[in-house]
């Protein structure tokens, strides 16, 4: 199957939003406090709305979400990583929403296919980024326990961050410039949170991340099994 560059790009960005939305939705009923339950669900809802617009640019949104096999998904490996503890979820949010905010700001300024959505979503994502930054400060500069967990999350997810800046066909941004802005912003937040910027590799042979090529980590299969099960068991079901 050949796909146009614009379709491939819509799948990549749409799958990022869809998969992270589903991961955040898994917190429903489990979040540490009610306010966070609501916040994470609201962020998930924003991402789902973005995913619906993006996937609709690539085809039928329901078919794409519910009937594709694991290797047809083009999301970053970062967004499929399990929620783990709250610190892991927050650091994943920090890494991703900073990237997404910078990316959408660039796309919104252009005149490509994604400009209308990006112009709208960049304002939503600004709140996601703020939420993640504020929580990173609290956890990092909080108790010994929260600091230790936040640091562990920063280290564990670090190797997935290089993938965000690899070129995607049809996404017209300067990856190097995006990466420099991302490193400056995340580095500053971690510094203020008394956390140490991980030293591990983000690029080269040890880099994790081939999600854009359809290769995913082990937990992703279980995630989409749950996400797709209802639709596959009851095709065409609605309420």
């Amino acid at each position: 199957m050949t796909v146009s560059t614009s379709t491939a790009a819509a799948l990549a960005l749409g799958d990022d939003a869809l998969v992270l939305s589903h991961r955040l939705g898994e917190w429903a009923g489990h979040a540490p406090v009610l306010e966070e339950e609501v916040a994470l669900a609201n962020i998930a809802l924003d991402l789902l709305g973005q995913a619906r617009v993006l996937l609709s640019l690539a085809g039928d949104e329901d078919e794409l979400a519910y009937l594709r096999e694991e290797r047809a998904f083009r999301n970053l490996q970062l967004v499929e990583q399990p929620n783990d503890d709250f610190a892991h979820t927050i650091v994943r949010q920090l890494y991703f929403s900073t990237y997404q905010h910078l990316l959408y700001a660039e796309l919104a300024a252009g005149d490509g296919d994604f400009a209308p959505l990006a112009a709208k979503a960049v304002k939503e994502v600004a709140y996601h980024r703020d939420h993640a930054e504020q929580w990173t400060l609290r956890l990092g500069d909080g108790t010994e326990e929260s600091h230790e967990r936040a640091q562990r999350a920063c280290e564990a997810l670090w190797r997935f961050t290089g993938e965000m800046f690899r070129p995607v066909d049809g996404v017209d941004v300067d990856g190097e410039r995006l990466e420099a802005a991302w490193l400056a912003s995340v580095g500053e937040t971690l510094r203020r949170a008394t956390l140490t910027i991980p030293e591990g590799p983000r690029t080269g042979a040890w880099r994790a991340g081939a999600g854009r090529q359809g290769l995913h980590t082990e937990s992703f299969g279980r995630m989409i099994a749950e996400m797709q099960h209802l639709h596959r068991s009851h095709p065409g079901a609605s309420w």
Partner: protein
Amino acid sequence: MVTLTALETELLALAGSVPDPELPVLTLRELGVVRAVRVRGADAVEVELTPTYTGCPAVEAMSADIERVLHDHGVREVTVRRVLTPAWSTDDITDEGRRKLREFGIAPPRAGRAAGPVGLRLGPIRTLAPETDPVRCPHCGSADTELLSRFSSTACKALRRCLDCREPFDHFKEL
């Protein structure tokens, strides 16, 4: 500038009179989400609706309500089209809409400011908001309010608390 026919003006007012499904004190016109109404031939009308947030689940209910109102008015074929450009902003909420929100117990968005989150500093016991242009309590009018959560019952609202009358309240976030 597109000139509306008398019929289009009438239908636009009708579509705009539909109450918001989440905040029924506001009409869709006051919320600023009905962008245009176009008559397409005899008995067919196209309405342009813009979502507040991309994932706003109320859009489907809004579309259904607009279709129903226009059908009841005798329009046979109604198409509600979702448009994203230009992106909706809380500045699209009318002054009347802001007044109604306040009366309903929701602090309205502050007008004419750059959209997006406001930079906050962490205080020893609570989040410190900048002193300029505070969010006022819709119940007692006090400017001494604090942020409890950036997200509340819907994505478009934040949860705050008044430090004078102690009532919690929703704040329609600037977007």
